[in-house]
């Protein structure tokens, strides 16, 4: 299990002992021990805020610990900054990419290198690495035009080029499609097995940790709660250790993506019952009608190509597809952010002037956007302000905001949706991602919409937050709202949607009822197969 070479092959690659880090009154890491061995993939499992990211930041020199010691290959050392970490052979593939969109792949890879830049040399190196690890990519492609999966490849190549001994992946699959994740894990195996590197996989997805690691450390509230070899791990006990309580079977499936581990034919118990409830408010008249809609991007590319879709009250329609096939544009369209080139959008029998500010919101279409920082929230404003963004007149008289009423309304929403924040006047950026998402959800549902568009609603959220979001969406549909669920997580769609459409290259290439849908047929359709 130890790799060839290295100063002291018997010593573990990394030994973190008693690492403690406080931020103000919050203990992010509390006496954490972690040992990484060469030739092994070490999974670190935990909810958001469990201290995983902080621990990794300590390792790569972004955060200085308050206490504790670090040994690399048996040698004690301190890591003051990322450069020192790089010198020690530690590299990290970040959750949020640090790439320059305007530059090409090889330029991005070379970024940060010192000395004279030889483009041919870098290109060859990129080609060699991509071949060696099966990370197929065009070195001359512009990064801004790549999909999330390809960008991650660039990020990985960037790391591998420095030939690190220790490689950290922070939530690597949060932006990937299932196939891309699969590919990533095989690369990971390669990196570990053939070259004796130590790899850390930070994740909150049980499935992938069970699937791709050799040993697992579970963190909760800044502490290590368990450490065990993967072959001895059982999904259910891992989940319990991670959350600190029993998780309901239903949301467990969604949160951990366990569909592949458990029997995929076994339907979650809650769903059938819910659909029955939904059918008690039958409605044949569609609330939202998208008719022959075409949206062209810059340069005339068809981002949406003649799309037609009906949505009825009380149903959840899932839009599946590999990312970058028009889902984002569909979300933007329903957020009044892009005008149409052809077709029309009708809500409650009224045509909506798409692209006109706030038109969709006024028509009764609420949106949980794919990237909440893009159009969902204003980070520099307070929680109250974000909660009242769409309809400030609710708490205003003659155009003047009633501060007491605004605070009161916000306080109610904060309680109802259990938004974790220091108060209504806390700036939104001080909230965790899950709580920011709850702010969006609370606001959009407060508008009592007829249609709710949820684009990647659980992306990047932790177990508890996913469970909450999933329940809310289902409840919203039961309450008679037409829900459009745009997601690249197939399990999520399979679990929630009554009807599923598949998008590919801006078109709707197929439609399935929930009964007919399974991972395989959907996968085939997403891949463009017309069987």
């Amino acid at each position, binding site marked *: 299990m130890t790799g060839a070479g290295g100063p002291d092959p018997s010593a573990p690659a990394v030994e973190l002992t008693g690492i403690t880090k406080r931020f103000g009154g919050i203990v992010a890491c509390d006496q954490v021990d972690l040992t990484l061995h060469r030739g092994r993939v070490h999974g670190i499992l935990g909810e958001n805020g469990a201290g995983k990211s902080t621990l990794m930041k300590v390792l790569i020199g972004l955060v200085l610990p308050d206490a504790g010691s670090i040994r690399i290959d048996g040698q004690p050392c301190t890591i003051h900054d990322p450069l020192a970490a790089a010198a020690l052979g530690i590299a990290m593939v970040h959750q949020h990419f640090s790439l320059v969109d305007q530059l090409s792949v090889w330029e991005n890879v070379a970024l940060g290198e010192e000395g004279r830049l030889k483009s041919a040399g870098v290109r060859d190196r990129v080609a060699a690495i991509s071949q060696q690890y099966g990370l197929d990519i065009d070195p001359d492609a512009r990064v801004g035009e790549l999909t999330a999966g390809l960008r991650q490849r660039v990020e990985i190549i960037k790391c591998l080029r420095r030939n690190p001994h220790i490689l950290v992946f922070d939530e690597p699959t949060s932006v990937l499609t299932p196939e891309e994740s699969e590919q990533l894990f095989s690369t990971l195996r390669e990196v570990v097995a053939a070259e004796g590197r130590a790899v850390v996989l930070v994740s909150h997805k049980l499935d992938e940790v069970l699937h791709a690691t050799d040993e697992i450390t579970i963190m909760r509230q800044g502490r290590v709660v368990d450490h065990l070899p993967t072959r001895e791990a059982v999904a259910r006990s891992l989940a319990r250790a991670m959350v600190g309580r029993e998780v309901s079977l239903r949301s467990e499936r969604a949160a951990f993506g366990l569909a592949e581990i458990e029997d995929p034919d076994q339907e979650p118990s809650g769903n059938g019952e819910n659909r029955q409830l939904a059918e008690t408010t039958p409605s044949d008249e569609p609330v939202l009608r998208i008719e022959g809609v075409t949206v062209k991007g810059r340069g005339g590319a068809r981002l949406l190509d003649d799309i037609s879709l009906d949505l009825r009250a009380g149903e959840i329609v899932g839009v599946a597809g590999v990312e970058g096939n028009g889902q984002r544009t569909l979300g933007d369209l329903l957020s009044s952010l892009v005008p149409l080139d052809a077709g029309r959008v009708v809500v409650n029998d009224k045509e909506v002037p798409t692209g006109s500010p706030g038109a969709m919101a006024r028509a009764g279409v609420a949106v949980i956007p794919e990237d909440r920082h893009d159009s969902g929230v204003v980070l520099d404003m307070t929680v109250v302000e974000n909660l009242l963004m769409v309809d400030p007149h609710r708490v205003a008289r003659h155009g003047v905001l009633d501060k007491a009423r605004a605070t009161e309304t916000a306080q109610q929403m904060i309680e109802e949706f259990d938004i974790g924040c220091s108060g209504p006047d806390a700036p939104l950026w001080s909230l965790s*991602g899950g709580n920011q998402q709850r702010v969006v959800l609370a606001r959009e549902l407060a508008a009592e919409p007829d249609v709710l568009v949820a684009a990647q609603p659980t992306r990047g959220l932790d177990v508890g937050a996913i469970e909450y979001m999933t329940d809310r969406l289902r409840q919203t549909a039961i309450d008679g709202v037409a829900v459009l669920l745009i997601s690249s997580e197939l399990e999520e769609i399979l679990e929630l949607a009554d009807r599923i459409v598949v998008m590919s290259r801006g078109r709707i290439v197929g439609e399935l009822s929930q009964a007919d849908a399974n991972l395989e047929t959907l996968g085939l359709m997403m891949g463009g197969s017309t069987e």
Partner: protein
Amino acid sequence: MTRGARVAEWVVLYALSVAVALAISSVIVEATGGDWWPVLEALVDGSIKASGRWGETLGVAAPLLLVALGTVISAKAGLINIGQEGQLLMGAAFAVFFSFRIGGPGPLNVVLLLLFGALGGAVWASAAGLLRYWRGVPEVLSTLLLVFVAIQAVGYGLKWQWLLLADEASRGNRNLVSEQLAKNNRIPRPDIFGNEFPITVYVALALALAVAYVLARTVWGFRLRMLGHNPRAAQRSGVSSTVYGATALAIGGAFAGLAGAAMFAGGGFSFGNYRLVPGFSDNIGWTGLLVALMARERALPAVVAAFVFAMLRTGAGFVNSTGVESRITDVVQGLLVLALLVPPAVVFLRDRRRARAAATERV
């Protein structure tokens, strides 16, 4: 950080940066053969100490504050209007045209003259708004370039009697000068403890309160700030960037235009002595921009910032009489301006870094 700690931090930052600027200034003045102490004394005398000087300083602070308030409003919408100098000049020109070609005597006329000034500034800023929202020309370019167009346009107006030029009887042998505003058309300058200043000072203060209130407490201000922070979220929430942005630019220009009119009708000897002349705006537009910068684009801090910049200006008038070469005193003034802008920049950069760190911390 508590409120007290924040205040203490500002005080320390300003004390430090001003002290450094003064220290460097003293070295420069002494090294070039001047005397430092009289320079410092003149600065204090000219701005507040000598008789009648703080009134003079207030009179300068009022237009600076008005310009800064307009800047704050367009900045909140996420727009970078840097053409206040031209908008101010246009406002003055509109006020002059109204006074001598349209209006009559009396107090009502003073009010109308000020409104015309605001209209002039608004028109000039709206030209930039039109270019931005109709053709996508960045407002940072158009507002700046329109300053030079304004200078030329007003110069042209001052060549023609039917526009701005005074008739021969009233201009004597001078060229390019407007008539002098009649006494009953001027903004009153009551005397308080031996200090005179136009009552537009109170107007400017009231407007500062109004702007702060509107931005913080009204739906309009709320939506304007939303647009400035995140245009896409604003668009989705029903804020039209065209309507709100163009309005914010126009209001910003109106404030600058109002400042120009107030300078013309209330300025005394500081500003052209009730006549419009080329160069009338005298950098008040540019300086007002710095005031807004020092106030970190907030209305109430702009009140203090405007007074401080006005002090620098009135003080500098006295420094020029100390015998130290004017190029050197210009350097001193520049250093002090820089010292005023360093603390806001430091705090801005630090806050942003903290916010980013917090944002990544919580992923």
